[in-house]
């Protein structure tokens, strides 16, 4: 146990992590990085090892969790418009992860369904699983309803689309098929070790297949411990108004608050 002397600042155990004896406490307030973990010989103390494994397990489970549209529908019960389910051309998770191109295309039945809803819409909201169904289950309906609350009566809103095995690019085909001027895609982001429930919002003006990330605006890290869904909704509604006013989205549309990096989902 000589390695675990409390006087040795690199040898912090859980017992003294919150004690005044631990000089790392003063540094921990500045970063979420896993500093001052302590060591046993050259290795990690057992608790630190298991904490990491739990964080990774949660992130992995979020990636592989099945998307359950009924969870999202239930949260949308107050919404009086239509809600339509679609599926990408990626039949399962394993294919989805290896073939991002298929996640950007609709399967044939979905294409037929959307044809029957073709119209002249200002915007379509797409709630999609992306790389974290958990984020979509937890955050998407709330975010969408809050955005709708910020929009005036002059917005013609298409049926809300719930999309499974979806990449960001799937919104381009959906928006074009429906005849929407703007897509707002709320999609589960690639889970970080400490953020398995993070949602991203992608706005695309003039959606059509072949749009690139440079044509989109992104609001990232939407989750209770990151950017709260209510605050995110405000920001997204602002971007929607600007996009409509300017008739564009992407690098030419400035957020004026922050511009998080696009995440490839």
């Amino acid at each position, binding site marked *: 146990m000589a390695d675990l002397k409390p006087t040795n600042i690199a040898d912090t155990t859980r017992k003294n992590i919150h004690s005044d004896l631990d000089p790392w406490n003063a540094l921990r307030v500045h970063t979420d990085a*896993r500093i001052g973990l302590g060591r046993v010989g050259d290795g990690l103390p057992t608790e630190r090892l298991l904490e990491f494994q739990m964080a990774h397990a949660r992130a992995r489970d979020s990636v592989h969790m099945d998307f359950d549209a009924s969870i999202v529908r239930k949260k949308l019960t107050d919404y009086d418009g239509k809600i339509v389910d679609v599926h990408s051309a990626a039949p399962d998770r394993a294919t989805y992860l290896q073939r991002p191109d298929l996640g950007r295309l609709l399967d044939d039945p979905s294409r037929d369904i959307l044809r029957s809803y073709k119209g002249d819409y200002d915007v379509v909201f797409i709630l999609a699983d992306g790389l974290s169904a958990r984020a979509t289950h937890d955050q998407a309906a709330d975010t969408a309803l809050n955005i709708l609350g910020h929009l005036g009566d002059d917005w013609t809103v298409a049926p809300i689309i719930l999309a499974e095995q979806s990449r960001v690019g799937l919104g381009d085909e959906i928006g074009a098929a429906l005849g929407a001027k703007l897509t707002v895609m709320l999609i589960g982001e690639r889970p970080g070790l400490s953020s398995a429930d993070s949602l991203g919002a992608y706005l695309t003006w003039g959606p059509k297949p072949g749009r690139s990330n440079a044509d989109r605006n992104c609001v990232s890290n939407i989750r209770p411990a990151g950017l709260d869904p209510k605050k995110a909704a405000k920001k997204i509604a602002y971007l929607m108004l600007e996009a409509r006013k300017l008739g564009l989205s992407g690098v030419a549309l400035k957020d004026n608050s922050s511009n998080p990096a696009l995440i490839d989902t």
Partner: protein
Amino acid sequence: MQQSAPFHFERFTFPDLKTVMAKASPLRSGDVLAGLAAGSDEERVAARFALADVPLKQFLSDALIPYERDDVTRLIMDGHDPDAFDVVSSLTVGDFRNWLLSDAATPEALKSLAPGLTPEMVAAVSKLMRNQDLIAVAKKCHVVTGFRNTVGLPGHLSVRLQPNHPTDDPAGVAASILDGLMHGSGDAVIGINPATDSPEAMIELLNLIDEVRERLDIPTQSCVLAHVTTAIDVMARNAPVDLVFQSIAGTQKANDSFGITLAMLAEAEEAAKGLKRGTVGNNVMYFETGQGAALSADAHEGIDQQTVEARAYAVARAYSPLLVNTVVGFIGPEYLFDGKQITRAGLEDHFCGKLLGVPMGCDVCYTNHAKADQDDMDNLLTLLGVAGCNFVIGVPGADDIMLNYQSTSFHDAMYLRSTLGLEPAPEFAEWLRKMDIIDQNGRTRPQLDGQAAQNLLAWSGAA
């Protein structure tokens, strides 16, 4: 230019050199995604038989991307050294594998051969090699570079200390630097990926690292991994730039997508060398690469991802880098699906780089949507340690909170050094001893009640 005849093995026919190379590649998801992979295991091995019969000389006349329209091809062809190539010039790819494993291929012989090899030759032979071959040959290739310390000496392992923070908060970055130094990391470079790519942000972070380096007299180098054009900008403003960073790839089109030209790299190298900040050497460039980067930019030109990656090392080689880092699992499962594919790619990249005379290190890493975990990283890390990898990455607890992926930790580096008997760069090891961070037996056992440690802690708290 000579057209290659179709290549045959039994009932299989491969129309050209890039097809036979792609189909000979060990299976990986990126080649499947690109539609380049072999259709069956049998076809894959048939392609290897066909590739084994290709004369090495053919790679000098049969360019995978035409000379006229790709500046990386021009760099490779124009830079080829026929005298160095002479010793293997009559061999086929299959013979070349035999030669590399033979006693004739001594460290000295491999070193003088490097300028005579092209990335395509090296990629081709790697496709015929098992993992143990990749390790055994790479171990014989010693590529030593220097700036304020010496990186890549046999029996040594350096670590890039990667103290990233999502908002570049100076106190947060400083806390991670302190943690890394106390674990014996930081001899390859203290290198920050900035959240914001701007000259102002870069200068602030450079000053932060430079201050601690000067105050504690740490024999290492710093780098802020902004775009090369940002580095050129801040050098003109007299910022303390040690190493210039850039992501590079193996085709002109992919480099275009990174917003770089070869001329920019040359300009940056010259500017950084002109600052004369190195003490034991003047290798001033730090490059990062990774299989799949060209395909993700739709710039792979129909070439398999491992061969395109090797071409990036020819780009690196032209600018005498201190460090070249293949960030092997960062790109995601659509390019490298699982631990097995990541492991193979890491060993290939290290082998190809070393054989070409490039100072290879590896970011042994994965994302949460790849089928991989810490056990896979332990395996690759250990294999690379055995293979003589120049450096690995050190992130607090293996969790990069800014880039959202898992790399290796300071603890992982301690494990590797201690298990394989590897030492930090000699100048840095001396400093660690002076600071009571490593003990008389070379183990990382920091004595934190001493004056040296208190100085470190005081700096970090003040930052």
